[in-house]
């Protein structure tokens, strides 16, 4: 089984790109998914329990919802009630 390294979110201007990084016998492999803003995708946490934290982080910062991710609406990094998505939009 491949080992999940992390999930990165990238604001591409037209939507959010998710890059999944895996380690497969010492080689890093990636999988890309492109989603609209505030879009949703299937959670990989049933297969990789550690994905829950990465998915909650992306939910906090990019507003993407992961269906099937436990505690997706529980805040992880942000303060209670903070609705801002700090990684969306170009830096001024």
């Amino acid at each position, binding site marked *: *089984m491949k*080992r*999940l*390294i*992390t999930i*990165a*979110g*990238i*604001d591409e201007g037209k939507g959010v790109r998710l*890059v999944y*990084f895996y*380690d497969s*016998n*010492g*080689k*890093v492999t990636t999988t890309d998914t492109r989603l609209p803003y505030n879009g949703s995708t299937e959670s990989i946490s049933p297969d*990789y*329990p*550690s994905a*829950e*934290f*990465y998915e909650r982080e992306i939910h906090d910062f990019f507003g993407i919802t992961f269906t099937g991710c436990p505690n997706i609406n*529980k*805040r*992880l*990094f*942000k*303060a209670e009630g903070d609705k801002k998505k*700090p*990684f969306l939009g170009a*830096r001024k």
Partner: protein
Amino acid sequence: MSDYLVPFGPQHPAIKEPISLRLKLSGSTVEGVDAQLGYIHRGVEKIFERENINNALYLAERICGICSYAHASAYTRAMESMMHIRAPPRVQYLRTMFAELERLHSHLLWAGFMCHEIGFETLFQLFWREREQILDVFERYTGNRVHHSYNKLGTVRYDIEDEDYIREQVHSILPTVKSLRSEIKGNGVVAARFKKVGPVTHKQAIEYCLVGPPARACGVKNDIRKLDPYEAYGKTKFKQPIYKSGDSYARTMVRLDEIFESVKIIDQCLRDMPATKVPKHSLKALPQGEGYGRVEAPRGENFHYYIVKDSKITRAKIRPPTLAVFPALETMMLGAHVGDVPVIVASIDPCIGCMERITVTKGRRTETLTEQEFRRKYCG
């Protein structure tokens, strides 16, 4: 149904950095944990955006105050892979040696804390006394004890002159570490506090994608220095200590054994390093596109991912080892006695600041800055 919900943190005497764990207790047995991060989140990944690739190296190093060199190394590896360059052999050996010196000081620091958590203050002081020998080496060759600013893209900032000094300093810690290791191994009180405390099985370690010493304590061989060798690790011989029990004791022994392996690597670096000159910093190509770099930090795999456009970073993603180990914390704590929680937390060697904080130290002044102040003062 739990009897109590006990807050452990964000400020707690047993943890050195702010983190909130809500412990669900049945009597004094932990039945669940709810973790809340973000108390020292400073938005490091956001500060990286629009940053020049040379300035960003110093920012990467300041992600952590213990394994600062691991972050600088991961950054350097990511950028050099995008530029399709490799540092000359002497530079590779120097970087390998400094990475191992950092592992020594980090493990000694952690070993002290681990003993402190069970009230064994003598061992705490003795481990920290030995750590000073390693910090002296850093101070002598880089001018700094923690933030060394040693790497440059394609090279390093300083060469070393007195190799015997490093050898002496590194070997001077071994007799004490050997004796302290035997003390931990043979002491019944330590065994009672560490053995069968916070266990993780081999299967759970694979499921949770654990990294570093917590994974190796469960029999998972995942040392990035072996799996995906970088710098001079492919040319050095060392063992990755493996234990099976997966408890706090196994995590302790893995790190203590790694101290001896690190000394072996440093010896090989000093012996095999070619006597050439360290090249001056000059970039013939600029990184462009996307790239990642990963290194085996003292706490496990440290992963950096960058997107660069016109020599400026447009996106940075950093996954420090603590974030990879944290999801398994609840598994480690289930069924544990509430009094063992500090030991379990310390046994993963957490570095909360790795993902969350920036503190700038200049001269004798330490200042904590907002993102805008940091950019205005140091990135202009």
